[in-house]
């Protein structure tokens, strides 16, 4: 097994889904391999997630941990630009947002990435 640490899009390591309520969304992040769990715990902090949605003026991010699945669940406040009520954007539900989060890069052992060849340049 290749334990070399590589930097890959989170999409190589985990999957997830957005749900919305009012002006908030939740995004689940579920690792394909449970060994990825500690790496996600360490790197996907609420602040990292909040800055990912800075252009949407996200205010507060709450992270819930479900170690038994395992999964993380992020609740992101004020990120829908008014929600389906007042939003002018194309995605007032935030349905696409899970894939914005999955575009973040994370550092994990190569064996935990579905396509290790998709490793990106370290910055």
């Amino acid at each position, binding site marked *: 097994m290749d334990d070399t640490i590589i930097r890959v899009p989170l999409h190589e390591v985990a999957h997830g889904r957005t749900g919305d309520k009012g002006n908030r969304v939740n995004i689940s992040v579920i690792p394909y391999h449970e060994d990825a769990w500690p790496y996600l715990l360490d790197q996907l902090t609420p602040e990292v997630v909040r800055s990912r949605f800075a252009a949407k003026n996200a205010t507060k991010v709450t992270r819930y941990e479900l170690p*038994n699945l395992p999964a993380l669940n992020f609740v992101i406040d004020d990120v829908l630009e008014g929600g389906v009520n007042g939003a002018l954007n194309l995605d007032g539900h935030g349905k696409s947002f899970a894939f914005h989060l999955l575009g973040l890069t994370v550092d994990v052992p190569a064996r935990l990435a579905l396509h290790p060849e998709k490793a990106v340049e370290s910055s």
Partner: protein
Amino acid sequence: MSGKTVHIGCGAGFAGDRWDAAVPIVATLARRDGPRYLIYETLAERTLALAQQARIEDPSAGYSPYLDRILRPVLKDAKAAGVRVVSNFGAANPMGGAAHILAMARELGIEGLKVAVVEGDDLSVVFDENGIRAHTPVEGLAMPEGRMVAANVYLGAQPIADALALGADVVVVGRCADPALALGPLIHEFGWPLDDLDRIAAGTMVGHLLECGAQVTGGYFADPGYKDVPDFGHVGFPIAEVTIDGTAVIGKADATGGLVSARTVKEQLLYEVHDPSAYLTPDVTLDVTGVRVDEIGPDRVKVSGARGKPKPPTLKATVSFEGGWLGEGEITYAGPNARRRAELAIEVLKTRVRDLGTNWPLRFDLIGTVATFDGDGGDLRVGQDWPEDGEFRVRMATRGGDKQMAQWIADEVLSLYCSGPAGGAGVRHRIAPQVTTASILVERGRVKPSARLVEETI
């Protein structure tokens, strides 16, 4: 008590879902034994407001406009097989929906169909508009302006169980908590007392997993090369098999495509959940942090370990208001220098709308760069370099109270055909009336749900 297994299939996860999804569900359930149910979830937050508006125009309307499309193909077979139907397709007019179903049964030659309605969700008979507005909204949105259209509280599972106890073949509900569509039948079949919190929680979790239809069977999941779903065009809708201890096996209709796996179940388990130790419903506070998800066979996933805490002291209600008009227009620029032509179009639109003398908010997207993930300020797009050549679609959106102004602003996109940058193509523009909503919490004592059979009147 009983060692029976209750089978619950879901034939719709929202109002616009696949019209024929229930056909394989009913065919599958017809081959099984024991209590069997078909549920449809058809009532998103705004759907009910639109139904209320329809009812104002025609007092016999206001139930789901999809009722015929989704129920007619299966009603006869369901009745013949003893599959009972529970749905919130009553929307703003459960009685009207029930009357329509009885008429449908006559046309289809179905004899003795018993239809029940669950009522009591309509708060407009409890409070006037000022009384509604006196409540503080939750979920991070302010109470909208505009005329109130509808106010409906999320009912729990008990009145659905009551309707089933009356012998109903079809239970027509308006607003209820989506998981109650499954929990109601489970309470009826297993006799779970409402204070058996872990059982009520388990039934709620089953309902939560089913309520979005194919979202637990590969729908909204497929991601080629990462999460592949077989025969996706024929994705099968889910069927849960539940036993008295609350343990459930999630499967799907026979001879369909799709996939039930630990991954599909986990994604749906957390869908629209905030604090996973406290998912609030009218019947219980559901804690899924201890849930186990086990693949026990092909397209069969066992879920167990839901825990219940006491139900919240209040009930949630959705209040809808007239929300003015959304105006939108789009135009495409392709080929050499397309991006700069598209950006010029945006500048022209800004000038033209300013010349209309309005201060309505405008949003511009440049589709082909970054649009969906960007904010109204366009920070992500402006902060990066994009190719000059290619294919880009300009989108402008605005919102305000005046229909005429919404149209005039949207028309500015159309006029780019002759007066805008070179090569503009494929304009689509439209205005649409909007409904805005708020969620409020209502004292339980103000809500009196009821269930009754509807007599056929010819």
